């Protein structure tokens, strides 16, 4: 078990990449701390699988280094790195039995048969397939195959890290929850570094201590779920995490006020006029619906009841703005203004967050 460092990493699948666009991974400097459970979140095609394959040694990066501890492993193969990986596309060895599938990585490492048998039993119990160990893997259902694939990833205890690439996509929600709990238990027991790729933010937030968000070949933020929620470092994080995502509105920012189409909005911090495309971001959770002439005038489109709360869908200057209203909230007559909690507003210039020079005195909010 080691700390994994990605140093100035970039990867292109093309032999002669010309421009930035040719790179599947653009520029990565990142440290995966030993023993931590990370969730890797990102939209389809942002390079998550590519990154995992580089860490496990299936791909050699076009540029940069990978360090395990202090050891440079950039050009070492999968055997030398000893990392377990569960693939997005479940792989089972058809002609082997379920038990042999689970035992396969252990046999290849020359483990003693008795120890293998015990370990296979343990993993089979975790994935709930103890009664099917003798059955041929051919012809199993898709979710059984995915469970075997997951089991093979967990079976070795001496690995440096375990990488999961969307391991539970075809598994039903209840079993999914169960398996995630098992993974957490395994993590607590052995303290492997784990990286868990998913599209599903609830899955990410329940599994991991730290969440890494990737966007377009870069890591845009590493943080706890709270960090991602409170201070998204990139507009993509704001939009991707949360449901609905963060509202982003074009604005002119000067001092502690933002001007959106002639309407002044108080900010929770003091900013020196940022350059580029400037936007303010506010989560729908911190938007309230008001009457009178305070706040941003919007056109209300509709209200959706989603159980625990209601989502107000509105528009400002042709762009959607959402607010989350408490359950059973009765709309005041003539309400058409949205008020943003000043200390919850983030400012973005060209999609990256701009930190305020100092927070305007609002005691409940920590300065960032």
């Amino acid at each position, binding site marked *: 078990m080691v700390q994994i460092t990605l140093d100035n990493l970039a990867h292109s699948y093309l032999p002669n990449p010309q421009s930035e666009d040719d790179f599947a991974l653009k520029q990565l400097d990142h440290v995966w701390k030993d023993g931590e459970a990370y969730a890797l979140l990102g939209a389809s095609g942002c390079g998550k699988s590519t990154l995992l*394959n580089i860490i*496990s*040694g*299936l791909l050699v990066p076009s540029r940069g280094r990978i360090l395990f501890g202090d050891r440079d492993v950039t050009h070492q*193969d*999968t*055997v030398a790195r000893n*990392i*377990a*990986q569960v*693939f*997005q*596309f479940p*792989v089972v*060895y*058809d*002609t*082997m039995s379920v038990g042999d599938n689970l035992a*396969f*990585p252990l046999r*290849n*490492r020359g483990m003693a048969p008795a120890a293998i048998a015990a370990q296979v039993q343990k993993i089979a119990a975790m994935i709930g397939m103890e009664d099917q160990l003798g059955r041929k893997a*051919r*012809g199993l259902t898709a979710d059984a195959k995915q469970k075997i*694939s997951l089991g*093979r990833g967990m079976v070795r205890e001496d690995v440096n890290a375990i990488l999961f690439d969307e391991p539970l996509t075809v598994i039903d929600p209840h079993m999914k929850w169960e398996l995630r709990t098992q993974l957490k238990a395994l993590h607590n027991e052995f303290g492997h570094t784990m990286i868990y790729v998913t599209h599903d933010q609830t899955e990410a937030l329940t599994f991991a201590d730290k969440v890494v968000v990737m966007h377009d070949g870069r890591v845009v933020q590493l943080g706890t779920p709270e960090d991602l929620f409170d201070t998204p470092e990139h507009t993509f994080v704001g939009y991707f995490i949360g449901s609905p995502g963060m509202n982003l509105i074009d604005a002119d920012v000067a001092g502690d006020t933002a001007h959106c189409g002639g309407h002044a909005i108080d900010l929770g911090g003091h900013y020196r006029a940022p350059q580029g495309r400037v936007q303010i971001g506010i989560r729908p959770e911190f938007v309230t619906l008001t009457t009178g002439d305070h706040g941003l005038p919007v056109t209300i489109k509709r209200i959706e009841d989603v159980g625990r709360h209601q989502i107000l869908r509105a528009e400002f200057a042709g762009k959607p703005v959402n607010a989350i209203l408490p359950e059973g909230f009765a709309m005041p007559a003539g309400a058409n203004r949205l008020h943003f909690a000043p200390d919850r507003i983030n400012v973005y210039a060209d999609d990256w967050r701009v930190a305020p020079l100092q927070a305007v005195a609002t005691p409940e909010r920590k300065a960032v």
Partner: protein
Amino acid sequence: MDKVQNNKAWFLVLPVLVLVAFSAVIPLMTVVNYSVQDTFGNNVFFWEGLGWFEQVLTDSRAHSALGRQLAFSGIILAIQIPLGIAIAVCMPKKGFWASVCLVLMALPLLIPWNVVGTIWQIMGRGDIGLVGYSLSAIGIDWNYARDPLHAWITVVVMDVWHWTSLVALLAYAGLQSIPQAYYQAAKIDQASRWSVFRYIELPKMQGVLLIAILLRFMDSFMIYTEPFVVTGGGPGSATSFLSIDLVKMALGQFDLGPAAAFSLMYFLVILLVSWVFYTIMTNLDKAEGR
């Protein structure tokens, strides 16, 4: 809605029926007809029953032809299938060299049977043939026209040269269809090259290999032209496989009755083998849940 019954549509099938009748049914029935009759010439036939079948079944000459045939098919399958797989596994997966290999592999398949025979007939000759001359030069008295073993080796090598590509191309197609994730998983599981072959490649090639075996079996079981051109079935009857023997019987000696009975049994054997293969393949597909 009432369906209008119009059986006149069946007449549209008539052309096909006529075609099939002339191309398959009538010739086959002629053979069946011959197989149960005898003649002393002048187109006078009389009923012979199953006599010819009995005669062929107990005929030692037919037995030894069948034995030679099975040995030949067995030998070439035992060589071509493993060799074809080995070639497919070693071929580059993509890029320029993959195309070059594919073209080279396809070449022997495009050469007509009698030309293949002629090529090898010349190649094997001790006086002017490349192979024959080289062998003679290193002190082996190579003569496929005199030595049955040499004749067999020539015929087998010729068939291997001609048809291994087919097996290799089929196996290659099977290999290409294996998703990359399998190889990646095997690397992560630290599988040896042999394990990758044994547990990934071979199982995934199973379907195409069965087809390859079936095709090669049927084709080699019916082989005629190449050995006929090279050895003419000799020396003696050393390389007289079933079809060569059949032609000798039917045309050389004009024993139409036994030849017809022989053909029918020949046909039935091939039908039987094909059916067995078909059954195995459909069962495999079912097991995979396709």
